[in-house]
């Protein structure tokens, strides 16, 4: 689904809460107890206190960064608001190649305690989006349907996943004074600590002084380490957010069907350790006909209402405004996480129904019957879900859903007006549909917890069978948008090379990637150093590389990137993203934006919008950012009249926060001077490199290294090829093609392909002849008699006129005279024109448009000498 991030950003207002409790003379910093967040134009306020888990604005709106808040501090003027955090990683932020270390399939909501010590743990407090719930390590995962709670089980130290040391979780928060009653340690070990009791505890904020003192110390500490180890900071950062994109895609795929595509989805915070019995669960169970759970659920449901009131306090989404069609904004700070998912219509449908029924029915079921709650739900599900793909959002349905949800919100709002300050529910209006049930049922009775957990395990095991079926429905032929680009695979695998010549041919094919790139060591080193230094420093820069075609420009850069990627795998340098675009592979220069953005974030947007998004991305600071290496091949094709594409490409690297390295390739050495206006050329800078055409020795070395001891060529033959090509163009592709052709000729020259020996001089000569000899002379020799005669007439007329051009009429007079001399029957004008047109089609002659008939002018496309030579040979 195409996602357009068009929503207006609502301005969030941040205010320090409580009294500044410490004054660090050296750093002139104050510590603060809590932070009040509110959305402009709304009264409701969320309070964020240290110790809570928060979401931090990142590159990806859907998956904000997760961290645990350690403390707040700011400067005297209260203008700067900083926060100290302990980072948590999503799996998507773990480098792709390290993901396997996990050794199991990750839970989509799983996060990892980040142990890399150098990650910049000071953030701008104003990038906090809200809070999130987190569950300690030994809680089992719920089934993947629940998406508002995050789970920590392991820690990640940039090299390996480790079992999370509970002490760690305890330790870090140690500096945060008002550590909320339990969430973190002995997981749900203390079943006595009911969620109900937790709310109040958390609200008991006032910070004990001793901890404050400790924290002050820690502030300066972290600062010091930061400045000292800046490089490592950068490193860690980039590792942190590596390969975010791809993973987030996977995640979103899993979430599809509910609300995965809501851009502004934020995680809801839940306090209870073992809740998460979602409607999906219910459905799943139902499907599996495990009715034994009914009791549990109905109990759960009965208890859920009150609990949800306790702490479902939702933080209104900052960005909800523009997205919600109607009055949603008015209810931003609702209690209980009733949510409206607008993006996925199917989910909406479900939600709508469940919403409509649940509040009342739940109570009923709790009191009166046992079965009903589940039964009702189940019915809804079974009614609704099979039709999902078909019943795509009628508008009215959506509206009614909103109406219903509004009504419910109002009710709930009335019920609760004391809980506004509870900030642990960062549930926004767009939380996926499944949450509503979950949130209401999440605070179950302790006795239920264990049972539920047991079933959760089962449920999650079962889910996979459900998701694929959904996907199948979505990829119907009528939505080619989801089409995956692929060429059908063959039934019989391709045959492997059988003999030496075939082997040699496979190796000599331009497409085969050589083990190493000989003869470009210097260029390789230069580019490598350039990119490496930029990646290490976290800065940006441009480089311009020129050279005639076939001199290994693109290949060298790919080799450099391969090496650098290897180095980053070995943790020698920070990770980076490599993106490649090619001016020839797009229909319009402005498509460059689209392609870059798509490769960076997998979004598909229009060119203008992509330009805006990229502009934002490269000019705004982000807490964690990796370097992007952008290869722009065939730069000259990105030329536009205003040159704005080029300008942007070269301007972005100069931005402070861009961390963009741009490598550009084109053929001409003086391209910047020739086609770029000053402000573009100036930004491109002077880091230039030109690839010289290969000399014959280099070409020879290239072939030899490619053949890699496959003995198929005579030494002399190789030398002949490389000398010939070096003399003409120095194009390695041409050289390889000739060698390949020579092996074919060699193979055909003998009757049995197996008995073919080395490729010898004569084979190479033949291949060279084929490729280099002009075909004009042969063409003239093979032409019919009248055609040859016409050519002679053309030359005769040229000589007579002293010009290199004549009209057909003039030539035809000559032609008639010549045919009389030759003793041939003269041909008619129509025939003569036909002959002339045939020669023109082969481009032996250049003709004017044929509507000029006899007056069309005729020119030779071959030199007169060639024609005479060819004709003489014919006569002899």
């Amino acid at each position, binding site marked *: 689904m195409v996602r357009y991030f068009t929503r207006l950003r609502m301005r969030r207002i941040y205010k320090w809460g409580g009294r500044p409790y410490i004054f660090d003379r050296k750093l002139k910093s104050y510590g603060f107890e809590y932070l009040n967040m509110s959305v402009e134009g709304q009264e409701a306020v969320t309070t964020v206190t240290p110790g809570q888990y928060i979401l931090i604005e990142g590159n990806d709106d859907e998956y904000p960064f997760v961290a645990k808040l350690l403390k707040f501090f700011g400067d005297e003027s209260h203008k700067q608001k900083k926060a100290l955090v302990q980072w948590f990683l999503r799996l998507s932020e773990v480098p792709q190649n390290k993901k396997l270390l996990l050794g199991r399939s990750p839970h989509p909501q799983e996060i990892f305690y980040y142990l890399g010590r150098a990650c910049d743990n000071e953030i701008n407090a104003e990038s906090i989006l809200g809070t999130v719930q987190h569950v300690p390590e030994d809680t089992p995962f719920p089934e993947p349907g629940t998406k508002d709670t995050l789970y920590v089980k392991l820690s990640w130290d940039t090299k390996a996943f480790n079992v999370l040391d509970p002490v760690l979780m305890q330790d870090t928060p140690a500096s945060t004074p008002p550590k909320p009653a339990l969430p973190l340690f002995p997981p749900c070990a203390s079943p006595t600590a009911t969620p109900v009791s937790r709310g109040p505890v958390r609200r008991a904020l006032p910070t004990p002084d001793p901890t404050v003192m400790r924290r002050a110390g820690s502030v300066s500490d972290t600062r010091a380490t930061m400045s000292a180890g800046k490089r490592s900071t950068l490193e860690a950062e980039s590792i942190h957010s590596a390969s975010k994109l791809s993973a987030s895609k996977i995640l979103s795929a899993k979430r599809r069907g509910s609300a995965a595509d809501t851009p502004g989805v934020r995680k809801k915070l839940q306090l209870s350790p073992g809740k998460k019995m979602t409607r999906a669960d219910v459905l799943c169970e139902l499907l599996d006909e495990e009715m034994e759970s009914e009791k549990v659920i109905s109990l759960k449901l009965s208890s859920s209402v009150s609990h949800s009131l306790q702490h479902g306090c939702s933080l209104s989404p900052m960005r909800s405004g523009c997205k919600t069609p109607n009055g949603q904004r008015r209810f931003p700070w609702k209690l209980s996480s009733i949510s409206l998912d607008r993006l996925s219509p199917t989910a909406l449908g479900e939600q709508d129904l469940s919403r409509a029924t649940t509040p009342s029915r739940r109570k009923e079921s709790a009191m009166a019957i046992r079965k009903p709650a589940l039964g009702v739900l189940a019915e809804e599900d079974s009614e609704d879900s099979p039709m999902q793909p078909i019943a795509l959002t009628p508008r009215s349905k959506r509206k009614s859903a909103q109406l219903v949800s509004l009504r419910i919100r109002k009710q709930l709002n009335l019920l609760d007006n004391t809980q506004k300050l509870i900030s642990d529910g960062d549930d926004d209006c767009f939380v996926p549909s499944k949450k509503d049930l979950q949130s209401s049922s999440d605070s179950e009775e302790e006795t239920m917890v264990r049972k539920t957990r047991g079933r959760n395990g089962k449920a999650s095991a079962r889910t996979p069978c459900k998701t694929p079926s959904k996907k199948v429905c979505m990829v119907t032929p009528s939505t*080619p948008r989801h089409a995956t680009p*692929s060429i059908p*695979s063959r039934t019989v695998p391709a045959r492997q090379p059988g003999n030496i010549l075939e082997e040699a041919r496979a190796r000599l094919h331009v497409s085969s990637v050589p083990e190493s790139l000989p003869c470009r060591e210097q260029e390789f080193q230069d580019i490598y150093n350039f990119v490496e230094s930029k990646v290490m420093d976290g800065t940006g820069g441009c480089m311009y590389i020129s050279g005639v075609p076939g001199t290994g420009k693109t290949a060298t850069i790919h080799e450099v990137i391969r090496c650098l990627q290897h180095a980053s795998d070995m943790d020698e340098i920070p990770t980076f993203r490599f993106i490649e675009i090619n001016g020839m592979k797009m*229909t319009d220069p402005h498509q460059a934006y689209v392609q870059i953005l798509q490769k960076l974030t997998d979004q598909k947007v229009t060119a203008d919008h992509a330009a805006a998004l990229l502009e934002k991305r490269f000019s705004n600071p982000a807490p964690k950012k990796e370097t992007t290496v952008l290869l722009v091949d*065939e730069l000259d094709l990105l030329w536009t009249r205003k040159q704005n594409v080029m300008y942007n490409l070269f301007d972005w690297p100069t931005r402070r926060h861009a961390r963009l390295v741009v490598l550009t390739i084109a053929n001409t050495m003086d391209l910047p001077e020739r086609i770029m206006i000053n402000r573009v050329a100036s930004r491109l800078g002077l880091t230039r490199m030109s690839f010289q055409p290969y000399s014959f020795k280099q070409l020879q070395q290239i072939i030899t290294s490619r053949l890699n001891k496959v003995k198929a060529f005579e030494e002399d033959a190789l030398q002949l090829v490389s000398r010939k090509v070096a003399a003409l163009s120095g194009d390695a592709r041409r050289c390889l093609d000739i060698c390949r052709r020579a092996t074919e000729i060699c193979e055909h020259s003998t009757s049995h392909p197996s008995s073919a020996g080395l490729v010898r001089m004569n084979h190479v000569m033949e291949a060279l002849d084929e490729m280099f000899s002009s075909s004009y002379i042969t*063409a003239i020799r093979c032409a019919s008699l009248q055609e040859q005669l016409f050519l002679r007439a053309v030359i005769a007329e040229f000589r007579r006129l002293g010009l290199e051009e004549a009209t057909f009429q003039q030539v035809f007079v000559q032609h008639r005279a010549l045919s009389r001399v030759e003793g041939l029957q003269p041909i008619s004008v129509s025939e003569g024109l036909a002959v002339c047109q*045939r020669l023109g089609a082969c481009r032996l002659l250049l003709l004017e448009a044929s509507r000029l008939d006899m007056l069309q002018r005729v020119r030779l496309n071959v030199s007169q000498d060639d024609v005479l030579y060819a004709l003489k040979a014919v006569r002899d």
Partner: protein
Amino acid sequence: MSKRKVKETHMPVGECISQVQMILRERFCHQRLPEKPVGMESQHKHLLELLRRTAVHGESNSVLIVGPRGSGKTMLLNCVLRELLEVKDVNKNVLPVHLNGLLQTDDRIALKEITRQLNLENVVGDKVFGSFAENLAFLLEALKKGDRSSSRPVLFILDEFDLFAHHKNQTLLYNLLDVSQSAQAPVAVIGLTCRLDVLELLEKRVKSRFSHRQIHLLSSLSFIQYLDNVRSQLSLPQDFPDTNFYDEWNDDQSVVDVLQRHYNSSKDFRSLHLLLMLALSRVSASKPAIKPTDLLEASRVCMVDSKANILHGLSILELCLIIAMKHLNDIYEGEPFNFQMVHNEFKKFLQRKSHSIHNFDKPVVIKAFEHLQQLELIKSMDSSTAKIQKEYQLMKLLLDHSQIMEALQKYPQCPTDVKQWAIVPVLET
């Protein structure tokens, strides 16, 4: 020289004739591929090997087949494809994509057509979804995902290859050739063109990616081979149902002369087929064999000068105007003339020499002049015709003197004074 006699023992003549016509027409109209391409064995082998390697080994290739019009490029390729698809392994494995530069006039259309023929996933029915840019990205992505050993080789056949080189930036060619030179899905790019200078049309980057394999189809048939070909073209297949319907070859010098003349003019088979087709159409139940006169007549039809034919249909007045133009051409050495000059010349003739033709009104003459222009026997030299009066527009004659003289000779009942005037211009006194 080729004569076919029919003896109706088993089948009635009419049926035999219709059979013969069916077989030969299929041959001449290129509806059926010949058993084996004639005179291009080495090229055939080269191309077959090349495509086989793509199909079997997944080796990417690019090749151009170059030859004059009617030299059998398409026929060769189709023969090779037919042979290739007979191989069991290959049959299900290759995806041929046929494009023609005359049909796919720009890359947008070409991309849609490729996507449609490959039946990628963004195709529903016959409709291709997405914009130009999306289609390109989609196709490239698809090709990129493939690899040598597992994806099906795609054969891109680009007829009128030179026209693709005129597309903007040569995007399509660059991308196809780039795929053929990189480790992506195996492709073979086969271009058919009659332009010998096709490589010069390619942009340097595109050119570098092309493998520079060219298969030239330049027929070097001698006249003897040409005659053999004619013979084989006219022979009936071995399994012709009526065995008594036999061929009798009879070397007739006049037929050899006709064929020699055709051979001199062009060696390609297409013009030969045209000639034989004309001869064949004269075969009927009452005249069941092709006689030398049939061929002579066919040859006459083929060789006839189209403009001379038009001249035969002109009125005397129009003919006179043409003669006047001829004289003007002689006087002014090919400089353009206008109506007024022609009219003056014509009036001179009427006053001094004409006995049979009387004066015409000027509007009538103008009408005749305009008719000549409509027939494109004369052509206006001015680009902006609107501003100048009709009488003074500069014109040029699109006829050769020999054509005029020939037409006059054949013109039925042409007055002798007009004929005379055509030879000797009216001199100024």
